[in-house]
C-alpha cells in the first residue's frame, strides 16, 4: 500500500475496536488488543479525543463518541430527503398556491432535490438537479446560515444581489435568529422566495424548503412576506424535520 500512513491505520483500528466495545476500554486493554505499545496507543487515543471521535468516561475508559455515529447521518441521502418530504412539500404548495423546492448545499451552490409545481396546472419545467447560487436565494441563505459564508467571489445577478461578504454575514446572522430567509429580486428579477431549514436528528440542518414565485404574490409593496407565508413554510419545515427525527425543530 504505497503512501499509507501508519498512525492513521492504527487510529482506524482503534476506532473499529471502540465501535465494537460499547462499554469502552482502558488504554492497556486497547494496546493489548491491537498489539501496540501503551505509549503509542495513549497518544492516538488522546488525539482522537481531541477531534471528538472518542470520549473518556469518569472511570478513564475510552469509547466511540456520538459525534462519530453522527458522521454518517450528517450526509442524509438527497433521495431519502425527498422521499420523506414529499407529503409536506405538496401540502405547502397546496396551502400557499406557490411552487415549492427542497434543496441541499453542494459544491458551488444549492442543489434542488425536489420541486413541486405551482398548483395552477400551467406548463412548468422540473427544476430538480438545478444548482442555484447560495448567496442569492432564500434556500441558500438558510443553508449558509448553518455552515458559514462561502469563500470566493459573490456573483452579482441583479442590483439587489448581496455581493459584499460583510453584508452577507449580517444577513445570515439575521436568518439564524429569525429561523427563515427571504429573497426578493436577488437572483431572478421579478422572483421572490421564502425558505426555512429542515433539520435532522440532533438538529443538524440537512436541507431547506422554500416557496417561490412572483414578487407581488410573495411580498407586499414594502417587501414584507405576505401574511401566512412564513408560518406555512416554517410549519412544513418543522413537519419534515419531525419525520426525520429532530426533537424540537
Amino acid at each position, binding site marked *: 500500500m504505497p503512501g499509507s500512513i501508519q498512525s492513521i491505520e492504527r487510529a482506524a483500528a482503534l476506532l473499529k475496536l471502540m465501535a465494537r466495545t460499547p462499554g469502552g476500554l482502558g488504554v492497556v486493554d486497547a494496546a493489548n488488543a491491537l498489539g501496540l505499545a501503551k505509549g503509542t496507543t495513549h497518544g492516538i487515543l488522546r488525539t482522537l479525543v481531541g477531534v471528538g471521535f472518542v470520549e473518556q468516561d469518569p472511570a478513564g475508559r475510552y469509547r466511540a463518541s456520538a459525534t462519530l455515529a453522527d458522521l454518517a447521518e450528517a450526509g442524509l*441521502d438527497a433521495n431519502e430527503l*425527498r422521499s420523506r418530504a*414529499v407529503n409536506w412539500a405538496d401540502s405547502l404548495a397546496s396551502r400557499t398556491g406557490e411552487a415549492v423546492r427542497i434543496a441541499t448545499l453542494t459544491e458551488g451552490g444549492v442543489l434542488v432535490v425536489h420541486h413541486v*409545481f405551482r*398548483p395552477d396546472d400551467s406548463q412548468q419545467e*422540473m427544476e430538480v438537479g438545478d444548482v442555484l447560487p447560495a448567496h442569492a436565494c432564500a434556500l441558500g441563505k438558510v443553508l449558509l446560515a448553518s455552515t458559514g459564508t462561502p469563500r470566493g467571489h459573490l456573483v452579482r445577478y441583479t442590483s439587489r444581489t448581496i455581493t459584499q461578504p460583510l453584508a452577507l454575514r449580517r444577513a445570515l446572522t439575521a436568518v439564524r435568529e429569525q429561523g427563515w430567509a427571504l429573497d426578493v429580486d436577488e437572483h431572478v428579477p421579478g422572483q421572490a422566495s421564502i425558505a426555512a431549514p429542515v433539520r435532522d436528528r440532533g438538529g443538524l440542518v440537512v436541507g431547506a424548503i422554500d416557496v417561490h414565485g412572483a414578487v407581488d404574490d410573495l411580498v407586499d409593496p414594502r417587501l414584507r412576506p405576505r*401574511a*401566512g*407565508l412564513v408560518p406555512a413554510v416554517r410549519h412544513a419545515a418543522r413537519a419534515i424535520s419531525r419525520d426525520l427525527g429532530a426533537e424540537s425543530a
Partner: protein
Amino acid sequence: MSRGQATQAPGRDGFVVAIDQGTTSTRCILFDHDGRLVAVTQREHRQHYPRPGWVEHDAAEIWRSVERLVPAAMAQAGAGPDDVVAIGIANQRETTVLWDRRTGEPVGRAVVWQDTRTSDLVDEMAADGGAEKYVERCGLPLATYFSGPRLRWLLDATPGLRWRAERGEVLFGTIESWLVWKLTGGPDGGVHVTDVTNASRTMLMNLQTLDWDPAMLAAMDVPEAVLPEIRSSAEVYGRARTVVPGARIAAALGDQQAALFGQTCFSPGDAKCTYGTGSFLLMNTGREITRSSHGLLTTVAHRIDGEPASYALEGSIAVTGSLIQWLRDNLGLISTAPEVETLARTVEDNGGCYFVPAFSGLFAPHWRSEARGVIVGLTSYITKGHLARAALEATAWQTREVVEAMDADSGLRLASLRVDGGMTSNNLLMQTVADVLDAPVVRPMVSETVSLGAAYAAGLAVGFWSDLDSLRRRWHRAAQWRPAMEPEQRQSEWENWQEAVRRTFGWIRH
C-alpha cells in the same frame, strides 16, 4: 385556488380520517375540506414467510396499529372526536382474514395477496374447465392472487373450520371487513360488511348482480354464512364504538380503487398507475363491464350508494417496490429504498443487465404462475449500480406491458400517465417510465392518493363534499416528466426486456 393562509376561502370545519391499511404498513392521514393533508402517522407490521411462496400477516397486529395510529394522527392535527366528520378505509386487497365472531380474535394468520399456496388448488379448478366459466361471472382469471381460493384453502386445511364457518361462528373478510367489524364493536355488535370493490377481488362476486354468485360459491365450496354483506363503497356502514367513538365509518375501497378515486378518475377513459409494493394501472370504463382480451382484469372501480357501479380494467404488477425492498433487506445493497436512486445514478445505464422479478409468478398481462425471477445479461462488468438500475427499469418495462395491453383493449393510445404512490418520489424511475412509454408522466399534488380516495368517498357519503365535480377541481399537477429517449434505443431495450421475460416462463414444473 386560494392564495396564502390569511386569504383562504372560507372552508368547512373538520377533518376526514383516512386509514390506508397496506401490505407493509398502515397509515392514518387527516384531510381538511380543501383536500389537504394535515397529519400523517404510519407504522409497519411484520411480514411472515413461513415457507417459500407463503406470505402472512397478523390481523390482530394490524388492528393494534389502527388503534394507535388514528389517535396519534388526530393529536398531530390537534383534532378531537368531534372534529372527525367521517372515517374512510382503503386496504390491501385479496388478503384473507378469518376470525372468531365470539372472541373477536383472528383464526390463524391472514393470508396475503402475494401468497401462492393455492396454486395446486387453482390448477385443479382450471383442469375442471373452470377458467372460462369463472371469468365470465367474476371478470378474473383463475390465479393464486384472489381471495376465494384462499378462503377455500383455509377451510380445507384447518380441521373443524368449515363446520364452524357453516354455523356462522367464524367470519371471513378482506382487511376492510375486519377493520369495520372491529371499529363498530367487534363481538359486541360489529358490522360484518365488505364493499363492492373488495368483493370484486374474491372470485365469489358476480360482476353483473354485484352479489355473491351461488355458482361461484359452489365451485369454491364456500358456505354463505361466512361471508360479509356486500355494500357500496361510499355509505355509512355504522358508527365507531372505539378508537374515535361516535365517528361515522363512511367508505371502504380496495387501495387501488381508492387511488383511482383519489386521482379523480371518475370518467370513462381516465386512468392512473399507483407505484407501491406492487403497481397497478386502472382505467375507468364507466357503467359498462369491459372484458379484456389482453390479460387485464375486469373489476369494480367504485359504487356510490344509490348509484350504479363504475367498472375498471386493471393491469396488476405483483413486484415493483417490493423488489427495492428485496435489494435492501435480502441483498443489503442499500439501507433505505430511496437510496436505490443514488446507487443507480452511479452508472450511466443497465450495462446489459435485465432483472425480471417474477417472485410470485407474473401477473398482468402474462398470468404465469409458474414463472420465477431472473437476472440476465450478467458479465464481470456488472456492478451493484447496474443491478439497481435494472431493478428500477423492471418497474418501467412492466408498466409498458400493462399500458400496451390497456391500449390494445381500449383501442386508444394513452396520451399521458397519471401516477402516485411511494415510488413516485424516485425521479430516475419516473423519467424512465416516461422514456419507455414515450408519454408524459404526471404526478398530482397529493401523492397519498389511496388515502385521499378513501377520504373523498367518505366525505361524499356524509355530505362533507357535494359532488364529484368539486373533487375533480381539486386535482392539480405537482410534477411532470417528459420522454427523452431515442426511439431506436427504446425499441432495442424493449426487445431485450421481452426476451428476459420469456426466460422466466416455465421455471416451476408441476
